[in-house]
């Protein structure tokens, strides 16, 4: 089985170094490296965003990221998978998630990267609070936004 790298991280990742490592798998017949990098948007639903506060149940999140990577590797016959998700207080333009796959060809590569991203969003215990000019919102699932309950603001 190929290489799996996952992590919940506080800092930016050197994604160029991962691409360089994965492209060496071309020698074993993996001709495509596909990368997704998520970025904090400065504007959501017409409102300026000042911060995204990410938190995770870290041990479980890393376990689930590993499982996603291994299952998708088998499913798409990948040579390597990396999944890193950031936590902490992130500003517009900061990276949030990195997915890198080495695949036999472009079709498997694009399909695997899109599917991994989708699973990370729905399965990993990672939570985000959107701090906007019009209030604070918990993002639930794929896009539903719930105003932050006011009673506990201080907690």
């Amino acid at each position, binding site marked *: 089985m190929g290489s799996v790298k996952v992590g919940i991280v506080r800092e930016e990742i050197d994604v160029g170094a991962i691409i360089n490592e994965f492209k060496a798998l071309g020698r074993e017949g993996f001709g495509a490296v596909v990368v997704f990098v998520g970025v904090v948007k400065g504007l959501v639903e017409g409102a300026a965003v000042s911060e995204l506060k990410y938190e*995770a*149940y870290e041990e*479980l999140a890393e376990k689930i990221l590993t499982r996603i990577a291994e299952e998708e590797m088998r499913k798409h016959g990948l040579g390597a998978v990396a999944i890193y998700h950031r936590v902490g207080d992130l500003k517009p333009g900061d990276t949030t998630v990195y997915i890198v796959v080495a695949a036999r060809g472009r079709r498997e590569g694009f399909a695997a990267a899109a599917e991994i*991203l989708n699973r*990370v*969003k729905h399965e990993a215990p990672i*939570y985000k609070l959107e701090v906007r000019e019009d209030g604070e919102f918990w993002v639930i699932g794929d896009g539903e936004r*719930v105003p932050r*309950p006011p009673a506990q*603001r201080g907690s």
Partner: protein
Amino acid sequence: MRIKLYGILKDLIGPEVKIGVDKPITIHELLTLLNDMSGGNLREWLDKVRVAVNGEIVESAGAIIKPGDEVAVLPPSAGG
């Protein structure tokens, strides 16, 4: 029994709560207790949360939690 909470549940209940139970209870019973303690705040979330016991998601509401287990209550994920 100490229960950790994440995301919006932290705002609704607090980051961690202690429940005085000295016998095993089901996940359903745990969530009912938490909802009562929070004055009903958890109601609309009861069918959306996931519960992790000792670092693994447990899907069945009838699954048993023992005193001493590490328990976390998780809202729907929002990674990416």
